[in-house]
């Protein structure tokens, strides 16, 4: 799983998503100020920044959970407005939230298919096709190399890594256009984290699905991401390719001062040098 294994993304890769000038306030709290991000097909984009920088709000707007106060979302060439998570999901945007959105009281296979269940008709009644969902879940988890005690187990009984893996597997099952992962590696052990990173690297190698990743560990950012967007106080203050900047430089920017100006200045410096 080395950066070198995977060729850099083609500069011709089409832009699949633009979130332009997004602002959002919650009561007195300003979460996002005129934030803009751009994602190309097959690209892995890291959103980094301190707690409260607006990363989670930004992706929750993309996934239809929140609605922006202003700004536009252009997805696959046309302006869209997602009314609900169901909307965004139906249009190919899958999100793995920090809380994983797993239902503890349901089995692994039911969790895989909540919201897009398979049915069969018995006496004209539309009933769940549990056998089909169980078989599909088992086969799919096997394909991804994800081990769970059984697809019939309640997810409540799984370990942290197993839960994370099931959540990721669920989100990539429907071959989404965009996959959003909110801190997929938080709270995972080294081995479990490596497995989830491996899943992401496999997707990246295929350059088919575009991924937005919220991460805190810069080491992991440089391992799996093509580009970095740094958020500070609700603004995107840095947009750089991982090949044009380094972990040390990123840390220097973060440490350069707590003020917005200081970070913006440091970011501008990187931008000027890389010409991006």
């Amino acid at each position, binding site marked *: 799983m080395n950066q070198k294994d995977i060729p850099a993304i083609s500069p011709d890769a089409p832009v699949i998503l633009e979130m332009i000038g997004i602002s959002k306030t919650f009561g007195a709290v300003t979460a996002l100020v005129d934030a803009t991000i751009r994602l190309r097909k097959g690209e892995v984009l890291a959103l980094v920044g301190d707690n409260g920088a607006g990363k989670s709000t930004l992706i929750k707007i993309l*996934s239809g*959970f929140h609605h922006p106060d202003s700004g536009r979302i252009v997805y696959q060439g046309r302006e869209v407005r997602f009314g*609900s*998570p*169901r909307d965004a*999901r139906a249009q190919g945007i899958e*999100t793995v*939230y920090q*809380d*994983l*959105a*797993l*239902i*503890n*009281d*349901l089995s692994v296979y*039911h969790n895989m298919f*909540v*919201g897009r*269940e398979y*049915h069969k008709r018995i006496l004209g*009644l*539309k*009933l*769940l096709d*549990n056998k089909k969902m169980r078989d599909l879940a088992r086969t799919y988890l096997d394909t991804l190399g994800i*081990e769970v*005690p*059984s697809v019939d*187990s309640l997810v*409540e*009984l*799984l*370990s942290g890594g197993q839960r994370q893996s099931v959540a990721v597997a*669920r989100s990539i099952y429907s071959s989404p256009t965009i996959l959003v992962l909110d801190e997929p590696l938080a709270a995972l052990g080294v081995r479990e984290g490596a497995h989830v990173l491996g899943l992401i690297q496999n997707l990246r190698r295929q350059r088919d699905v575009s991924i937005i990743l919220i991460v805190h560990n810069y080491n992991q950012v440089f391992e799996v991401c093509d580009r970095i967007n740094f958020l500070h106080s609700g603004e995107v203050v840095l947009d750089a390719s991982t090949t044009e900047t380094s972990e040390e430089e990123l840390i220097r920017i973060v440490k350069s001062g707590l003020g917005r100006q200081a970070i913006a200045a440091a970011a501008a410096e990187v931008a000027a040098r890389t010409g991006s």
Partner: protein
Amino acid sequence: MARMTATSHGAPRKVGLREADTALERVLVLLSRYREASIAVVALVLVVYFQLGNGAFLSSQELSVVLRDTGRYGMIAVAEVMLMITGEIDLSVGSTFSLAPYIMVLLSISFGAPLAISAPTGILVGVMVGVINGIITVRFRVPSLITTVGTFFLLQGVVVSIYNSQPIVDPVQEPFNEIFGENLFGPADPIWSWHGLTAFTPFLWTVLAVLVMQVVLNRTTFGLHTIATGSNIIGAREIGVRTDRIKVYNFMIAGGLAAAAGIVNTTQFASADPLAGGPFLTLQAIAAAVIGGTSLLGGSGTVIGALLGAFVVATLNNGLVMMGAQATVSDIYLGAAIVLAMILNVQVDRMRARRRV
């Protein structure tokens, strides 16, 4: 279920689920796996106890009384189970139970509407009560415990003031009445006859409702989303479950079933009594749901258990009275049973959570 891995010593070591250590834990694990079975055992023990104590408990007359009560509590308890799984509760069912048949009988008497038309109208009223309870709860974010205390009093007041709190005689319309609760069973009738069957119709309608809700809960998308809503409401929303709608629909089911139970009760007694339901009925139905193994925490519950719980409540009430106890004494046992069942439910839930390693 435990996955096996080898340790450096080569001896297999279990990971995943921790095994139950003590005898108590083992019992709790068994209970969590077979909740309905354990309450069925309690019901059986009660039946044997009352039969030995009195000898008449298993007579068809007495069983008819017990099963009619079971039907009345059970139909409402099933609806409460669905709501409790979503994390809500409906205390207004006791008033809906009185209101719906009152409207049914009034429509038939005042406008000459056949019961076959006024009864669905009554059920529709119950469903509308559910819509109101649901919308107040999800839109205005009032906890359903409070919402439905409010609508309980409101509807109780309405039904009492419609006709000066007078009971109204249910019009005689066959076969409607004998299908929906009228008891034609006399001492001369054999049990296996139409008249014998009518001794148990309220119970049989409830069994039907339980079977339908069992399928709805465990075999439909709606049931899956009901569990998801109560288990993890934010997560369920994030993956596209319309949690507000699911809650409102379950309030509608509760209102509709409470109305249906009230209508069956009215045809049974040939009278629509504005005080037929009341707070006591609401609480007995919730007791049945809790004794049946549904916790108030949301996310899990059993409708079969609710029926068994209703049977336990009905058996306690009638059995103790039959053995010569004051009616009030049975409340002591009922109260103790609720507290014990709730302690057990919570322990079983905790046990389940602790077994996560």
